[in-house]
């Protein structure tokens, strides 16, 4: 995969960690303050891990990497996650 994807690709990895659907959360970038739907982050990967960057300033917001020993989740590039009422809807109907 030569080009980036988007935050929709994080749905699976984050479903292993969060109890609510995460891709409809609003995420605020620590570097520039832009608030973005998680599904619209710019995502590189899948190997060695998924790196989600801010569509405004391109700084990394979220990193997820699965190794044989477990999963790393780095949220250091985000200041907040806003899980709206639509985000907390059940994942399946």
């Amino acid at each position, binding site marked *: *995969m*030569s080009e980036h*994807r988007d935050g*929709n690709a994080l*749905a*699976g990895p984050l479903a292993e960690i969060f109890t609510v659907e995460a*891709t409809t959360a609003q995420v605020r970038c620590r570097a520039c303050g832009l608030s973005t739907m998680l599904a*619209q982050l710019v995502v590189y990967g899948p190997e060695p891990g998924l790196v989600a960057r801010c569509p405004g300033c391109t700084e990394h917001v979220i990193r997820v990497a699965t190794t044989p020993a477990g999963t790393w989740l780095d949220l250091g590039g985000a200041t907040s996650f806003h899980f709206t009422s*639509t985000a907390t*809807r059940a994942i399946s109907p």
Partner: protein
Amino acid sequence: MTASRVETATAHTLSLRVDEWNGHLPGQHIDVRLTAPDGYQAVRSYSLAAPALDGVIEITVQRLPGGEVSGFLTDTAMVGDQFEIRGPLGNWFVWDQDDPSPVLLVAGGSGVVPLMSMIRARDRADIQTPLHLIHSVRTPQDRIYGDELTRLAARAGGPSVTWLYTRTAPPTETRPPGRLRRDDLDDGSTWTSGATPICFVCGPTGFVEEAANHLLASGHPADRIRTERFGGR
């Protein structure tokens, strides 16, 4: 895997029987995880192509050059094989069947897969919401679901379907082959209600960026455009 069906020279639809599948929303995807005998694992996302039927789900996989997972699923996997899957996934790129807004679907190549899930859901639920699919393909042979879409479009209350050809067009086509242009998406003929359409755009990243920019330039509000990029060219 209960069946494999050839869609085009490079795309296959796989039917998967899943224990305790509780249904999914049109537009959602699954992750497929393959594990090699040496323990090496690879995970890839595939859009669900249709509503579930009796616990069987469908994904359509486009073989990518050098794609280790897509190549296995299209060329090597056989009926009876078992895969690990995770899903249904994603609540952003989904169509709400109760939303009466007209629907504009824009697909590049195999980006048509999650949009077909929306079209089939609309058809099975007999929903009359106006829906227009614009599908950009290289040649007529690359029309995934081409026969089914032609059949559905011919039906009263069916979706309207437009194919755009980037390399080779059929002889009857008046539009010269070429990449997506803004006026390709400027089709207001479907929208008789005057309501603002909800737009879903899916395809290779470059295509999605171009299409979304055309839609914005044509006056579609940003919060009515949902996008899913699967990388590649």
